[in-house]
């Protein structure tokens, strides 16, 4: 009796400890970044740092020096980051929104599912592949009419726009489809056409969800690193035309971290802090908006419309007349129909974008991959022209293995704690959920920065697979926790009760009943995490290594993962064919994993449905 009690207590303690690790991770990211950036902030001066528009670091600058010989102002990059984000939102946000409208309301029924999963696949493509596509396809195309090689704000906005597309589409689509069908019927019953019902009722009803999707897209664009680095040009200047080299905050960190001196490194960490602040602000806005009741939003805007419209006199009635005029004109021009046409065009464009990115890389890379087995399975030769990505493949596999061993137990146990032990709404639980929310919002380069100043030092001062895996593990936590929790939630309460009623303890119920039932969902989370490790590059460059050296012998060796290898190969410009082939490998692996996860997820759904049928009988 006593030993069972002890086991139960121990179990609970272990699950709680896992959850606490999530909080510790968040706290230490903030603590380390802030502590390491304070000297730089005070040496450079907060105002000079944020609003100074000259960035010319001197790597010999030391904190002990009375006078700094370099200047450290990141204002050009703040402006650059905002410009690129706005550009991405204009392109990806608009197209994404209309694509969602297309899928939800104008797409032929048969095409709906394949189209949605194609858009989801777009989300899985590693950001280096987008960047690579930018280098080999977009830049040469833009160079035809650009004064430079095509890099700059326009190219960055287009690439970022395509990257945020899936986020915007899937979230907008979900909220559009969640609008009650009764609204549609009500609209049609008063004589609305399908198109007017969509644009007059359905879209306004989904407004808050659509806004949330756009904000999430902004968050993604703000934090994106590698793809931007590859097409922005990266000179520390303002983006004062569509085609001049400029730099964003994330790029600043990646470009200079490798060889930074004392003060310079502090300034780069401070750059990370500023970036983190921006991302957190966006996340807070996101949470506010997605949490706000649709009802409330509607009441507020309706009130506004009413007060501005009625009792108009003088100037106000002048404006309301103009409003009426525009409304009447819009009616005459059949804006609804224009909206429909735009939706269909955007839907087609999104489809083409994916086919183009994947197709172009495949057509160029696949022949090389097939005809050159040395590339995949060769042995590394020093100073040879004969490149092989075999070491990168080994490094990637080792990193996948190690990071999952670290992150998976913690993530699953945290999810178990949240779903099985935690009392809803208590402070500790809210802290954990908050921590997980924050973790999912932190840009990948900030993880890299954090890993570099903690794990790399901890494990001997130079980058290693061990340090890289620890870094990415933290990044994986939110994904694992959320999807595990999702599948834990979907288990019928009756099963737990059944087990408990037979006298089984909580621990036994969890291990024998709950976790096995949730297994398909947990497996899907595992596979998605693998995909994540394989496709990330920014967190690895300075924690795991960026050189395609000999095959690693152990976890303390350093090496480039596949995604990092693609970045290196495409950057140097000499190994473009090898880069294509590497991109093909990445796409195949990531697509394969995504499809597998989807397959397993579907099986889970089927299984659950089967069980509810049984229960009904």
């Amino acid at each position, binding site marked *: 009796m006593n030993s069972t009690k002890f086991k139960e207590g121990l179990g609970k303690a272990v699950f709680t400890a896992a959850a606490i690790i999530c909080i510790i991770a968040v706290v230490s990211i903030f603590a380390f970044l802030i502590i390491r950036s304070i000297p730089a902030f005070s040496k450079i001066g907060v105002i000079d740092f944020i609003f100074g528009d000259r960035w010319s670091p001197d790597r010999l600058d030391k904190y002990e020096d009375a006078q700094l010989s370099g200047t450290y102002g990141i204002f050009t990059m703040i402006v650059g980051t905002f410009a690129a984000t706005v550009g991405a939102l204009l392109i990806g946000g608009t197209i994404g929104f209309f694509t969602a409208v297309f899928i939800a309301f104008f797409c032929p029924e048969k095409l709906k599912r394949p189209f949605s999963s194609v858009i989801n696949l777009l989300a899985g493509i590693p950001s280096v592949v987008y960047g690579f596509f930018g280098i080999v396809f977009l830049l040469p195309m833009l160079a035809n009419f650009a004064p430079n090689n095509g890099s700059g704000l326009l190219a960055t906005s287009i690439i970022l726009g395509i990257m945020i597309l899936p986020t915007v589409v899937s979230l907008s689509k979900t909220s559009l489809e969640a609008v009650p069908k009764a*609204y549609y*019927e*009500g609209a049609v019953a008063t*004589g609305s056409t399908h198109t007017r019902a969509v644009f007059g009722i359905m879209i306004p009803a989904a407004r808050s969800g659509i806004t949330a999707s756009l904000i999430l897209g902004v968050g993604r664009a703000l934090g994106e690193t590698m793809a931007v680095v590859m097409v922005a040009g990266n000179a520390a200047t303002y983006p004062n035309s569509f085609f001049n080299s400029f730099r964003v905050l994330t790029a600043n960190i990646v470009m200079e971290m490798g060889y930074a001196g004392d003060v310079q490194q502090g300034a780069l960490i401070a750059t990370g802090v500023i970036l983190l602040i921006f991302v957190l602000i966006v996340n807070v806005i996101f949470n506010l908006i997605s949490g706000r009741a649709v009802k409330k939003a509607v009441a507020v805007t*309706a009130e506004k419309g009413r007060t501005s419209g009625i009792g108009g006199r003088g100037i106000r009635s002048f404006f309301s007349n103009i409003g009426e005029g525009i409304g*009447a004109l819009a009616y*005459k021009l059949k804006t609804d129909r224009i909206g429909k046409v735009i939706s269909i065009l955007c839907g087609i464009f999104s489809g083409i974008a994916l086919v183009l990115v994947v197709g172009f890389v495949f057509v160029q890379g696949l022949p090389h991959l097939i005809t050159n087995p040395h590339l995949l399975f060769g042995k590394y030769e020093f100073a040879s022209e004969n490149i092989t990505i075999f070491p990168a493949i080994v490094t990637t596999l080792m990193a996948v293995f190690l990071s999952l061993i670290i992150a998976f137990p913690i993530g699953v146990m945290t999810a178990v704690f949240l779903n099985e032990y935690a009392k809803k709404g208590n402070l500790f639980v809210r802290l954990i959920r908050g921590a997980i929310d924050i973790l999912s919002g932190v840009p990948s380069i900030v993880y890299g920065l954090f890993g570099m100043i903690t794990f790399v030092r901890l494990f001997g001062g130079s980058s290693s697979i061990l340090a890289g895996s620890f870094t990415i593990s933290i990044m994986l936590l939110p994904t694992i926790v959320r999807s595990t929790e999702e599948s834990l939630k979907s288990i019928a309460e009756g099963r737990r009760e059944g087990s408990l009623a037979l006298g089984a303890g909580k621990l036994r119920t969890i291990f024998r009943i709950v976790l096995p039932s949730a297994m398909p969902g947990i497996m899907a989370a595992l596979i998605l995490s693998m995909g994540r490790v394989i496709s990330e590059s920014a967190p690895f460059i300075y924690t795991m290594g960026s050189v395609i050296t000999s095959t690693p012998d152990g976890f303390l060796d350093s090496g480039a993962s596949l995604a990092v290898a693609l970045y290196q190969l495409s950057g140097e410009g000499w190994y473009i064919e090898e880069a294509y082939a590497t991109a093909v490998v990445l796409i195949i692996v990531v697509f394969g994993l995504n499809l597998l996860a989807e397959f397993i997820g579907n099986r889970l759904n089927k299984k659950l449905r089967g069980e509810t049928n049984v229960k009904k009988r």
Partner: protein
Amino acid sequence: MSKKDNRQTPENFGQSITVRNADLWYDDYQALKNINIDIPERKITAFIGPSGCGKSTFLKCFNRMNDLIDGCRITGSFKVGETDIYGKINVNELRKNIGMVFQKPNPFPMSVYDNIAYGPRTFGIRKRSELDFIVEDSLKRAAMWEELRDRLGKSALGLSGGQQQRLCIARAFAVKPKIILMDEPTSALDPISTGKIEELCTETAKDTTVIIVTHNMQQAARISDKTGFFLLGELIEYGDTDEIFTAPKDERTERYITGRFG
């Protein structure tokens, strides 16, 4: 508010309905079987019958809401006045002329004002003064003006269930329909709200044809002039309400209204 009422009312749709040999299939399942009916203008006609008997399905044939359902096939002749509504007509124009109120109140997530103005705006009315007039007129007809005049800017979702349903009726009024279809409009409401809506039906029938589907036989007996009894997709009996309820011709009708099945 004294502007004249500019809503166009094209006279091509009549107010009576004539149906001959109507059949309706959902894929292979026949939901309506050879229905013939003459619905008089400016009267209240009630359809009664047990769940799944096809009365709502039949109602939705009149404004072609069944077009929205995949695999739904309709044959036979449906005439509103002289117009064949399954012939070459503008469906949106048809639905404007034949309003509908649903089982569950479905106000749009907008203000009270915008809910009512939605229909007129659909048909190109943008002038504030005209819209103000229509909103006030519609709410007055629905006997809601007094309770809502100060809440026009508030969200319609904040109203009570009964108010929401009456708002939906007012919303239907706003496009000046000649016929109003009501699909169990009171089944989700309390007795007091139900009473108000019944009053409204009687009032409406002075210049509009009202067709109401109901589960509630007392309701049919209380308010309707004509009653049709449906069973398993067939129109078993149709006639004056008094006759149906006092001297039904068909044995099945009698068994239903005396509560022996359904």
